[in-house]
């Protein structure tokens, strides 16, 4: 075990998986010579050469479309999108081909590619470096979506994604790239997709969160200590969703607050609420509450602290729910 920052764990996973499987290659903008704008791919070009850690032309749809062809030629490309909001052009290929091509060939061809990107706000960046686009990815059939919140999971989920025979999108919480620090197993480390993690045990209310909202939920739980016992469920994989873990927690607490940084309408919290409405209605003591970003363009950074879900907003939601 070593202590690593979250972004270092991403880098570690790439080194380990590229060492393990010579078909794995990393492609992206500035991933080679520069080692990535967040240094997530640092050292890969030196270690594995410019044909396996490739600086690509600046074109996100062409990059992912090229990855489709690379898969057909036998590669397992890991595609870096430089920022959340710069990934939108790649949705064209993701929706029209990545999520459909296997089905189109009756399962004859597989597309074991990974799209990974830093996502989310709170980093005092210019416009369009702050988005939480997970819904677009989750809503696309034929792809899986994972979001780590700890260094260990950042490594393990990325390794699982690289080894997965299906396309996987990984969103990495850039806000905590270099603040989340924790134990990361050395060498091969895989965290299976589709399994949530109970980040904290509790009995009164379940705070459902993922990515950079897990630490927000933890701070809210700390603030509520002595007042309410909060269980924190870190979803880790949004698709496929670990419904069993969600239902088990709700059976215990009967109350749910979902925390999500993305805009509210049709965000992932709505899916969680729908699952609970369908499958856990008799376990619930009150409404499923959402603490989310707003249905507005992500603001300039002098206003962004008002946009981002805060521990205080989560505490407020928990109190409203407890007094329901």
């Amino acid at each position, binding site marked *: 075990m070593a202590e690593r920052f979250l972004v270092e764990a991403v880098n570690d996973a790439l080194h380990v998986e590229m060492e393990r499987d010579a078909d794995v290659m990393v492609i992206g903008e500035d991933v080679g010579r520069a080692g990535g704008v967040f240094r997530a791919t640092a050292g890969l070009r030196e270690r594995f050469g410019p*044909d396996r850690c490739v600086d690509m032309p600046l074109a996100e749809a*062409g990059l992912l*479309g090229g990855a489709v*062809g*690379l898969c057909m030629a*036998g590669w397992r490309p890991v595609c870096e999108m430089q920022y959340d909001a710069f990934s939108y052009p790649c949705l064209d290929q993701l929706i029209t081909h990545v999520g459909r091509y296997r089905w189109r060939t*009756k399962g*004859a061809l597989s597309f074991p590619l990974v799209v990974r990107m830093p996502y989310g706000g709170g980093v005092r960046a210019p416009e369009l470096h702050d988005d939480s686009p997970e819904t677009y990815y989750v809503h696309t059939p034929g792809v899986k979506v994972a979001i780590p919140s700890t260094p260990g999971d950042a490594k393990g989920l990325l390794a699982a994604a690289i080894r997965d025979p*299906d396309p996987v999108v990984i969103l990495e919480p850039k806000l905590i790239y270099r603040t989340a620090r924790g134990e990361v197993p050395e060498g091969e480390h895989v965290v299976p997709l589709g399994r949530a993690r109970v980040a904290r045990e509790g009995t009164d209310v379940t705070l459902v969160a993922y990515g950079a909202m897990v630490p927000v939920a933890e701070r809210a739980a700390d603030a509520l200590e002595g007042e309410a016992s909060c269980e924190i469920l870190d979803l880790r994989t949004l*698709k496929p969703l670990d419904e069993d873990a969600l239902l088990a927690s709700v059976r215990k607490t009967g109350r749910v607050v979902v925390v999500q940084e993305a805009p509210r309408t049709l965000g992932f919290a709505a899916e969680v609420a729908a699952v609970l409405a369908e499958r856990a209605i008799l376990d619930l003591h009150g409404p499923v509450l959402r603490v989310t970003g707003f249905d507005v363009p992500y603001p300039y950074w002098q206003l962004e602290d008002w946009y981002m879900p805060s521990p205080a907003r989560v505490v407020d939601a928990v109190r409203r729910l407890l007094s329901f």
Partner: protein
Amino acid sequence: MTELAAGQPLSRVIGDETTADGDIGLADEELLALHRSLVLLRTYDERSIVYHRQGRIGTYAVYWGHEAIQAGAVHALDPEDWMFPSYRESAVGLLRGIPPATVLSWWRGHPAGWWNPADYGVASICVPIATQVPHAAGFAWGSMLRGEDRVALVFFGDGATSEGAFHEGANLAAVKRAPLVLLCNNNQWAISTPLADQTAAAALVDKAAGYGIPGARVDGTDVLAVHDAVRRAAARARAGDGPAFIEAVTYRAAPHATADDPSVYVDPVQVEEARRNECVGRFEGYLRRRGLLDDEYAQSVRDEALRAMREGITAAEAEPPADLALLFEHALVDPPSSYADDLAELRRIGDG
């Protein structure tokens, strides 16, 4: 052709009233094989329009008059080379052994229309315009990185050159010196939009210069001119010299698709001229002048193609209804548990 954009002259091999026939060095058997492919594609297209009118296939994208581009290209490739068709080349896989029933099933909306691209070196039919260009670029590049002696060819139309995906794919292939042949069927219409509303370039081939790759501009109704250009481009790509762009100029003398009525926008004079100069007849004239083809032989080739199509539509219509499990199967290698639940629910409720 009249009113073509100014640019390089069109390369031609097949002669006319004023010019003599050329020769690209194909043996007689190769010329006759090329002819059989042209006739098979033509027959597929003409029968498909009939089948559509009879309600036996769904909406169908016509390629009448573009057979020379398709057959010329396929015959110029090696068997291990891959091609990436758009819907305009839906039946090009016939020339690589995909059964007519399979392609007809695709147009019937039946999953029996699926094929494994690796079995034939033919990617799935690409419906969204130009999005297959990056696939072909990535495939060519990825094959090159693996040290495989394999070229990719991608078909697309004039309208596709306006798409970002064309640009991104062409640029990627050029930067990586990927062994890719970019083959543009410039039939001068994107549904109802003429080339002049598509580009301000004097000729589409001029775009090649912007990618730092060579271009060629050929008569797309001259199967030998297409063959020759593709063969040169493929040889160049195979030698490690990177991609090339070929503009094959034709005129769309048929509707975009069975749902389209082009009489409201095309020039009937140009359509008439294009139909007079259509590619199968031109090549048959060439073969006659070389003493390789007479009426009886031409009829036997057409009969053979018609037989293949009759067998194909019979086989396609004999496919049992697709099992509803195919809604879920194959979407993912590792399906979520919801698929089994959804399937069980559908089976329980039934289709009533």
